[in-house]
């Protein structure tokens, strides 16, 4: 525990120091402190994850917090690892990335202060067992991330995004505050342990509470339709921040859900189904929108929604297992969810770092303006490719590992007795498959268009390869991606305790079960590796001392092909989008060519978010209308002002005389 406290202190003080330091010192301090705290946190995390006893510390704080328990149980440890690692990597990446902003000394100080505050608050919130402190940490997290998102606040749209983000977070937090306030009232204490007693006392309560918590945490995690802040906030933030937001912070919403589940015990069947279906919809919706995007970071943001959906499906599956008493489902569901939590952290971070490199070198986020980058930044491109493969859930990389558990879980769900589960499982399988192929389409598109072919617009200057500061985090994570992908079992020892704590009685079998499940997969993947190796050898042997002529691309006889001839991302996605038009509202502006010699003709299409179009914009419109009704109040006329009071008085008196 002392190590943990030391780590926390280090992160926080590191932020303060980095904020105070001049010049490059700040960036260095931040990198070092985050690394140190990561290393400090490792031993306890490791021991707890591998079955060591859970560390606990009790603190008597002032009202209304009261007794505050800090507990590192497997669940907490699991998320701590992600937070600490992600925090350090982002700080490390910032070393070079943030150098571009070094004129803005004040901004940088704020950046580092809030970056560290974000990490620290997330660490606190996963280990604290006290509702009030949890909320405080939660709000601090939102606040810190808000300041990070609005780092480039000189830009109008960044400010708008930041505000939208903050407000959305507060709206979500409102549900949490309400839920926790109610629980603390019921339990007469802020301590989670008491909460769980209350939950177990009456089930009806836990039903409603779970709904509240689901909305609150879902808004943070980005479940449809509460996701609308993601595609705004992520592009606005600097890339290392986007990485930490998408890779780490939204997972705190997942953590919250799991924590509540842990407190609540087996959920209602309806809840499990709801979670499962909402997640499925989020997954489909997220990736569909991702396909429609041109802004690479917006695209990644939507793909985060998709992956949160996949994680949620895992959780829903686990809940189904609990609700229907099928340990197999529970274990596979939760394992899949947790695996995907970690995997998504790895490849999504790499992708955002990669997008950051592109932005830093080419100064655009619009993939239509890119192309052929692989020749300028081969390493970045390769790592980006690896992450793209992983996020599409393709085998031999870690994305497949998590999804395999989910698929397998749902397949076993098919064998269950109750039609409901069977139906959900099959819908889930089909949906997950659909998500998978759409991800393939999406990421072949983004990688192909931005890194392959030739650049569609002339670059201002030849973009260079990313610096080591940027490559190292990406490389490190990519190693994890490949490692887990090739040999999934290395994760099981760390998974066992967490899933065990979630799945309850189904725990002991877990590790062996997963082992049995994955052993043949490992063999098959090994075989695959051999096959590939063989084929490559064959190919190169065939091509040895053969002539390899380099020529221009086949142009179908057309003599002057330009780089603008390439297929654009929009046209690549067009056939698919024409199929899904119903759920992807797009605003199109077409200027038709006129006359024999058309002067100018243009066509632009901007994808819009369904939830925004059908839900939030109309609501806001209504709200504005409603508030518009009040404008007459402040008319400036003294007599009216007095009249209000008199009328009010009159009404009250009438009410009283009327026997109120």
């Amino acid at each position, binding site marked *: 525990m002392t190590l943990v406290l030391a780590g926390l202190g280090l992160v926080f003080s590191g932020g303060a120091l980095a904020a105070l330091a001049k010049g490059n010192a700040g960036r260095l301090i931040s990198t070092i402190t985050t690394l140190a705290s990561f290393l400090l946190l490792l031993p306890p995390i490791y021991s707890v994850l591998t079955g060591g006893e859970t560390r606990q510390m009790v603190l008597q704080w002032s009202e209304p917090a009261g007794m505050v328990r800090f507990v590192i149980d497997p669940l907490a440890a699991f998320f701590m690892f992600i937070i600490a690692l992600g925090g350090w990597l982002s700080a490390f990446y910032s070393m070079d990335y943030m150098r571009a902003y070094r004129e803005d000394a004040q901004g940088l100080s704020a950046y580092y202060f809030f970056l560290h505050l974000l990490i620290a608050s997330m660490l606190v919130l996963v280990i604290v067992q006290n509702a009030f402190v949890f909320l405080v940490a939660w709000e601090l997290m939102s606040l810190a991330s808000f300041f990070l998102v609005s780092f480039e606040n000189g830009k109008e749209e960044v400010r708008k995004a930041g505000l939208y983000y903050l407000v959305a977070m507060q709206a979500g937090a409102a549900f949490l505050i309400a839920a926790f306030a109610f629980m603390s009232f019921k339990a007469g204490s802020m301590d989670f342990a008491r909460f769980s007693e209350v939950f177990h006392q009456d089930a009806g309560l836990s039903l409603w509470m779970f709904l509240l918590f689901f909305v609150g945490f879902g808004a943070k995690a980005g479940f449809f339709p509460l996701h609308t802040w993601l595609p705004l906030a992520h592009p606005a933030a600097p890339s290392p921040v986007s990485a930490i937001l998408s890779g780490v912070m939204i997972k705190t919403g997942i953590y919250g859900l799991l924590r509540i589940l842990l407190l609540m015990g087996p959920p209602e069947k309806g809840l499990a189904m709801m979670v499962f279906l909402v997640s499925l919809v989020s997954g489909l919706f997220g990736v569909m929108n991702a396909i429609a995007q041109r802004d690479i970071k917006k695209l990644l943001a939507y793909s985060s929604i998709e992956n949160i959906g996949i994680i949620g499906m895992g959780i829903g599956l686990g809940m189904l297992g609990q609700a229907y008493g099928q340990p197999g489902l529970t274990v596979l569901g939760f394992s899949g969810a947790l695996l995907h939590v970690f995997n998504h952290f790895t490849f999504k971070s790499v992708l955002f770092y990669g997008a950051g490199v592109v932005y830093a070198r080419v100064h655009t986020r619009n993939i239509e303006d890119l192309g052929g980058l692989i020749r300028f930044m081969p390493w970045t491109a390769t790592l980006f490719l690896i992450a793209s493969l992983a996020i599409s859930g393709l085998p031999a990389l870690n994305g497949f590992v998590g999804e395999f558990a989910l698929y397998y879980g749902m397949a076993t769900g098919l064998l269950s007795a109750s039609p409901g589960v069977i139906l959900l499982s099959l819908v889930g399988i089909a949906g997950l498959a659909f998500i998978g192929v759409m991800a393939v389409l999406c990421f072949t598109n983004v990688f192909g268009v931005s890194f392959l072919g030739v650049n569609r617009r002339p670059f201002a200057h030849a973009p260079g390869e990313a610096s080591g500061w940027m490559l190292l985090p990406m490389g490190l994570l990519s190693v994890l991606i490949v490692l887990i992908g090739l040999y999934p079992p290395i994760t099981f020892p760390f998974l066992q305790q967490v899933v065990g704590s979630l799945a309850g009685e189904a725990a002991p079998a877990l590790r062996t079960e997963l082992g049995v499940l994955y052993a043949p997969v490992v063999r098959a993947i090994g075989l695959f590796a051999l096959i590939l190796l063989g084929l490559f050898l064959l190919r190169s042997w065939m091509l040895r001392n053969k002539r390899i002529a380099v020529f221009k691309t086949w142009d179908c006889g057309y003599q002057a092909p330009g780089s603008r001839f390439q297929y654009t991302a929009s046209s690549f996605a067009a056939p698919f989008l024409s199929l899904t038009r119903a759920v992807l509202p797009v605003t199109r502006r077409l200027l038709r060519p006129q006359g024999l010699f058309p002067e100018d003709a243009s066509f632009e299409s901007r994808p819009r978010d369904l939830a925004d179009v059908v839900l939030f914009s109309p609501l806001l419109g209504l709200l504005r209308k409603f508030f518009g009704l009040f*404008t007459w109040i402040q*008319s*400036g*006329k*003294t*007599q009216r002002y*007095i*009249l209000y009071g*008199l009328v009010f008085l009159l009404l009250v008196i009438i009410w009283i005389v009327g026997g109120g």
Partner: protein
Amino acid sequence: MTDLLIVFIGTSMLYVFAASRIEAYIKTLSLQGLLFFLLVLADIDELNDVNFFFLLFETLVIKALVIPYFLLRVIRKNEIGREVEPYLSQFYSLLIASMVFIAGFGMAFWSLEIAAGIKPLYFGVSISLIVSSLLLIVIRKRIITHILIYMLLENGIFLLSLSVANEMPVMVNVGILLDLFVGIYLLVIFFNKIHAMFDGSHIDVLTELRD
């Protein structure tokens, strides 16, 4: 005797509704002050001497003489003649005022029934005074008129307090009087400034600040 005085006070209010010359209002004010003085002299007996004399002083000196004179000087200085056309025409406002007045009598009888230990007529009339002055505030447009009506309102409240005859401690009375006095004083000062700064002392010039 006392009833007569009180009815006079009430009717003086009606006169305010009827009249449109500012000076007339002020005269009414001082008249009311005088009537109060007589009322206190004639009817109030269960007070201790200090309060009694204080009341006499307040009614005669302050309400009947000082404040009216003060206000008179103001309107003379700013040569304000009559009230401009109010939001509600003289006729209707008079109509309403008389209704309020009658309602006041109704209140009086009602208070007689519930016998809450208050002097019925005082009560009824004072209520009608208060209500009608609030009505005036809402319908009249001249800023100076508002000051005067504020005084009338205070008079109504004064009568109400008499109706209860629940004696306030001296220092409280002093405080109340002080507030009243300073209030009027400030109102007048600001009125003068408004008169100087804005064109016209019409209440609607004061609608710069709005959302």
